[in-house]
């Protein structure tokens, strides 16, 4: 799964010193500046999901501080489901799709709840969950959902949430998966401070849409490592904030700009190709070559398509000595966190070795 542009074996000598360095790091930790990890990437690529994952592996106090209470998660699940349903039914006329009178009544109950979100709670959701389930499974909505040339924006977690709707239709405790899958758009800059074996870390998350990027520069200083996230699943979609720009191109250009930026000359990158689970399903329906015109391999091969995309990103790196760790991941992949910290430990050792 994981690939490094440099192999651990390259630094055998340094690695031998790792225990000593670890110890020194711990001793100095009270005076150490926190190691700053910065999440970057376009909107909806999964930065906040990785943020949530990293936090979920920390001690109880950290988790408590940075995890919203269950009631918010529940409300956001309802909100995500209602938003998706109303998007799908509202776009139906553009597809010349019609509903029966009975279906229209069901639609109306959903739209009513959507227009009074203030009151949205378990009771209201329970009263309309059967209607939502019916609509989601209807021929009409499924054909809109499966349209290969989507003309609307839809949350990537829609299918996951819809398939769990029976569980949400009565009082429930959100699972870790629910929490990771539910979408909340980030604006501004969000920071979390925690310690791992007495070493202080600062994890920084940002909003990814174009209009948010002007804020990024405020957190570019002293970055230990950039965690760049790209949604590999978005080879066929356009930006939410600008429907004339393909998400793939935007993400690639953003990576090019960041990985070659003077701000991060000394910061190793971890490049996450996120949402591989969705990607594997999508390539069966939507040929990669239809959207990435210079791909002429096998559209149905995960290996070929994902390597092609990986290479596209790789070739944007101007400095051949730049350390970039690649990782293919998805929201529920808890290995992501391991990779981050192994990579960081690895690159820290390299930096220390440089100083010596």
């Amino acid at each position, binding site marked *: 799964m994981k690939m490094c542009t440099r192999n651990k074996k390259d630094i055998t000598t340094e690695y031998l010193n790792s225990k000593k360095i670890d110890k020194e790091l711990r001793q100095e930790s009270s005076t150490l500046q926190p190691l700053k990890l910065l999440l970057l990437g376009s909107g909806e690529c999964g930065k906040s999901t990785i943020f949530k994952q990293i936090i979920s592996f920390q001690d109880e106090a950290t988790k408590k501080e940075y995890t919203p209470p269950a009631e918010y998660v529940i409300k*956001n699940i309802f909100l995500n489901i209602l938003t998706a349903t109303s998007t799908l039914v509202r776009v139906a006329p553009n597809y010349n799709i019609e509903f029966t009178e009975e279906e229209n009544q069901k639609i109306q109950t959903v739209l009513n709840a959507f227009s009074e979100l*203030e009151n949205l709670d378990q009771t209201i959701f329970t009263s309309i969950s059967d209607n939502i389930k019916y609509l989601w499974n209807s021929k009409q909505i499924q054909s809109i959902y499966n349209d290969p040339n989507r003309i609307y924006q839809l949350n990537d977690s829609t299918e996951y949430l819809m398939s769990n709707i029976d569980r949400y239709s009565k009082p429930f405790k959100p699972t870790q998966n629910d929490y990771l899958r539910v979408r909340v758009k980030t*604006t*501004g800059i*969000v920071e979390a401070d925690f310690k791992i074996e007495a070493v202080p870390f600062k994890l920084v998350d940002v909003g990814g*849409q174009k209009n948010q990027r002007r804020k990024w520069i405020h957190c570019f200083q002293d970055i230990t490592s950039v965690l760049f996230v790209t949604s590999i699943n978005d080879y066929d979609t356009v930006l*939410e*904030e600008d429907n004339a720009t393909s998400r793939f191109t935007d993400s690639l250009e953003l990576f090019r700009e960041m990985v070659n930026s003077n701000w991060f000359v000394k910061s190793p990158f971890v490049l996450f190709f996120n949402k591989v689970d969705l990607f594997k399903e999508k390539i069966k329906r939507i040929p990669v070559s239809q959207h990435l015109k210079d791909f002429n391999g096998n559209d149905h091969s995960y290996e070929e398509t994902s390597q092609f995309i990986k290479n596209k990103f790789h070739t944007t790196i101007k400095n051949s000595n730049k350390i970039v760790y690649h990782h293919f991941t998805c929201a529920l992949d808890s290995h992501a966190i391991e990779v981050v910290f192994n990579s960081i430990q690895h690159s820290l050792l390299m930096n220390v070795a440089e100083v010596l």
Partner: protein
Amino acid sequence: MTQLEQIIKDRNLALVFRQFLYNRFNNENFSFWLEAENYKYLDKSEMDIRSKAIFAKYFLADSKYELNINFQDRKDLEDKINKNSATSDTFDRIQNDIKKHMETDAIPLFLKSDDYKKYKESQTISVPDRDRSVTVGMIEEFFKNRQLGTQN
């Protein structure tokens, strides 16, 4: 009562919230919400000019305060502002979306923050005396409007 309403029923808490957002480069949502709320109290004759100013400030690409909303919503609002004369409900839909966004993104974090806890314990705020921030001005206007509203 929604979370935002809980915050803005107290002028000082609104100031603490504004400071919290400001420190996180996330102030434009609240600032827009206040400006759109204050807009409703304007005289009808002022609405055309003000609605265009609000649009330029929060919806034009490259504006420092550009809101993070989707392409279609922005376009719908632009059409509305260009084609029709401004009315008190011109911004209602987006204002509501922005409120919803704050209530899912920033407010849960705010309610857990030290800023909030400190205020709840001491009921005092440490907003600089000479803070001339535009948003602080909007908060003052908001509370003035609200007071006038309850008197009428």
